[in-house]
């Protein structure tokens, strides 16, 4: 026995005699993970979170989360002798006087953007492939929670430097708090320790940003991954893949090497962005003061849609009995986002109610084979895109020589018109794609090769698909609408009332599809041809 083997054996023995880990590890080191590029989106979320923890820890060593006033005397000359908060001054210090400080700040900010973008992409993958279906509803809920907290965490993070831009963002957050009926001004005074901006808000959100929320993230991510591990990963349909198996590569060594390697690649790409792409140059904005602002004030992209909603809100306020309700803030700031996120969280349960499907699903849907769901997803994306455009209306107006008013009215009307149109169009496209699948399964792929037959007729040669391809294109389930009994056994008409009717209607819309071709159809056609 080699020496290294002996040492490893001793360590393993020590651990196993105390935990009995060998049995569990033996089984799990060969655990199978399916391979697909879209499964890496969730990995990017995890890795950028780790990068955020590492780079964030580095920043805390120099950052001073205090609104105490100081006079800046660091090496950034344009702000020399300017009065500012300690948090702004220490952010300047990190950027100009700590070696690698600016790099880490930029890595941290880029990683936050990547974290949010990857979470959204991951969420879309889960949604469009139906990976949220039973038994994975809980993981969907955790995911929705992570995205929501991610938005909050990102906002708090870029608010910390206390520069002119982020201070304006805090002012807007204060206005949202203040607008809440009955308790609003109390909440605002408690959060800010009195009148805005006060001296306590930055230190308070610092604790939330570096301790409370990361702790919750860590806990939720752990549960999220444990569930993935325990329930085993979903897989795309294909030859040899069924609801009862999982096909892929074993954890050790292939998946470990690929996933571990991918972590370094994500970190490397983030470091590259941090090195060459300037982001949030706070020294250009100056310290925060409530009387000033910079034109083109823009939040980060994951807040941009909220800002767009606020911008397009109608100028409505109710004044009654000596009280004010600001619909122009509540509607876009709390009510619409609340409805959106609640709807997103409940979607798996709504879909299960409509389909009446109570089975486990481990094979993913191709988005075209779930036209209704795909159309709902596309509709939601269209909604977010329209409000996001309005969130950048000032920038878009100056870049493309349009008027802000024009863009605002386009999006105000577009928000009601475009999403339904996108729904209809997406559903039609999905059904057309199903028809195209049916076509090539039954008639083969067009090769573009023209052949003249002896009697002069021209035909195009069609190439038959491989059995693997045929199976992949036809394996999906045929949806059946729920039958809602018109009369029950006692002769009562429509026993389930409006709820039943609604469910039947939605189930019908959900079941609309082009029938997948069957082997017998293919055989019948073959007989006809030859």
């Amino acid at each position, binding site marked *: 026995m080699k020496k290294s083997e002996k040492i490893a054996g001793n360590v393993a023995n020590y651990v196993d005699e105390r935990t009995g880990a060998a049995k569990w590890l033996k089984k799990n080191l060969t655990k199978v993970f399916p391979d697909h590029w879209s499964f890496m989106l969730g990995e990017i979320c995890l890795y950028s979170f780790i990068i955020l923890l590492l780079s964030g820890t580095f920043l805390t060593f120099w950052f001073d989360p205090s609104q105490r006033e100081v006079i800046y005397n660091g090496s950034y000359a344009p702000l020399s002798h300017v009065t500012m908060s300690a948090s702004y001054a220490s952010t300047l210090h990190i950027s100009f006087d700590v070696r690698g400080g600016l790099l880490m700040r930029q890595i941290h900010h880029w990683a936050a953007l990547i974290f949010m973008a990857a979470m959204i992409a991951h969420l879309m993958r889960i949604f469009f492939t139906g990976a949220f279906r039973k038994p994975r509803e809980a993981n969907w809920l955790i995911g929705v929670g992570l995205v929501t907290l991610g938005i909050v965490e990102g906002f708090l993070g870029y608010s910390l430097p206390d520069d002119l831009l982020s201070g304006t963002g805090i002012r807007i957050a204060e206005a949202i708090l203040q607008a809440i009926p009955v*308790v609003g001004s109390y909440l605002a005074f408690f959060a800010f320790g009195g009148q805005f901006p006060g001296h306590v808000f930055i230190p308070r959100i610092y604790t939330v940003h570096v301790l409370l929320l990361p702790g919750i993230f860590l806990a939720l991510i752990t549960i999220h991954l444990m569930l993935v591990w325990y329930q085993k990963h979903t897989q795309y349909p294909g030859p040899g893949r069924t609801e009862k198996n999982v096909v892929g590569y074993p954890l050790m060594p292939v998946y470990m*090497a690929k996933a571990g390697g991918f972590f370094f690649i994500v970190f490397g790409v983030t470091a590259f962005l941090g090195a060459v792409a300037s982001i949030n140059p706070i020294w250009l904005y100056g310290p925060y003061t409530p009387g000033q602002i910079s034109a083109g004030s823009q939040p980060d992209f994951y807040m941009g849609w909220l800002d767009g909603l606020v911008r397009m809100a109608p100028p409505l306020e109710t004044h009654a009995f000596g009280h004010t309700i600001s619909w122009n803030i509540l509607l876009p700031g709390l009510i619409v986002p609340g409805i959106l996120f609640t709807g997103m969280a409940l979607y798996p349960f709504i879909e299960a109610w409509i389909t009446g499907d109570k089975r486990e699903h481990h094979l993913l849907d191709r988005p075209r084979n779930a036209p209704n769901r795909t159309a709902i997803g596309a509709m939601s994306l269209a909604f977010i895109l329209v409000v996001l455009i309005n969130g950048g209306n000032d920038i878009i107006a100056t870049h493309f020589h349009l008027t802000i008013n024009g863009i605002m009215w386009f999006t105000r009307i577009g928000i009601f018109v475009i999403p339904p149109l996108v729904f209809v169009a997406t559903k039609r496209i999905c059904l057309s794609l199903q028809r195209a699948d049916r076509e090539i399964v039954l008639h083969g792929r067009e090769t573009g090769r023209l052949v003249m037959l002896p009697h002069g007729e021209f035909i195009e040669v069609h190439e038959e698909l491989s059995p693997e391809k045929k199976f992949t294109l036809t394996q999906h389930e045929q949806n059946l609408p729920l039958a809602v009994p018109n009369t029950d056994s006692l002769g009562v008409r429509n026993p389930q009332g409006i709820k039943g009717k609604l469910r039947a209607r939605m189930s019908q819309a959900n079941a609309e599809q082009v029938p997948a071709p069957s082997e017998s159809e293919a055989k019948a056609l073959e007989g006809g041809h030859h």
Partner: protein
Amino acid sequence: MSNEISKFSDPGLPEHIHRKSDSDPMAEKRAEQQVAILFLISALGTVLTIASYIFIKQGTFVYLPILGDVEASQLFLGLGLTISLIFIGFGAVQWARRLMPDTEVIAERHEFRSEEIDRKEFVETIKERAATAGLGRRSLIKRSLGLALGLIGLTPLVMLRDLGPLPKKALNETSWKSGTRLVTDPGNRPIRPEDLEVGSVAQVLPELPEGTERTLENIGTDAVLLIRLRPTEFNLDAKRLSWTHNGIIAFSKICSHMGCAVALYEQQTKHLLCPCHQSTFDVTRAAKVIFGPAARPLPQLAISVDSQGYLVATQGFTEPIGPSFWERSS
């Protein structure tokens, strides 16, 4: 549907195609060397990182196409870090792709639902255990425990009370009073009407009593914009016109929508625009909202001149400034 039975059958996993490096020792050797080279490049990246940290002084700039002048220390630190990280990744992935087994493996899944007997026994266990504690019977204990737990939830709420003072009337107040002089910001100098040309705009603050330090909270409520037009350009009722002085009109600079500074003044149209959400106010009509989400005009400050010819407020604001809140009465 009837075609369910005649679906295309599953041909099973396609046959595995071996890689060149699986059979050809030369190819295997090459793959091994490739992986090693990738890892060595990463090592060089770390050397670059450390060298940049030690040798490049902060504040040195290098010119790069597209990016312009870039701070050299952070650029090379970053590039070193990039190389050291990304090539470990490339090496590991290449290792997995070329040299590790690439045959797909099948593992079975099992339904999560427990066996019927286990479920039954579980319910029985729960029932039996609960019965030993008398959970079903002792409603007095259950109710009093519920009360105790419910009340304990109040503790953190109560304990958070000292986060801040009660708002009281603070949201209704500013430092402006009758006779308060308008002073420039920055500069803190009182102004005369002739300091302002027609068409110009200035930010002013109230003069504070001697010895009072101006806080950010003051600025957040007191900031005022002065705009000078030709008196004939106003379209105001008699009362609001009397609040102006020789074509100079004063508004709160804090947006009535969400409190941003309304900083953009367009001289041609005489519109004030808030850069946050594009609420647009018409200066000639007492800052009436003509576009955007704001629901109220910017509060107007009544101004005049004092005996020494300096601009002063003739009264405080007649309504709360800034964003709306529940207790606001109009």
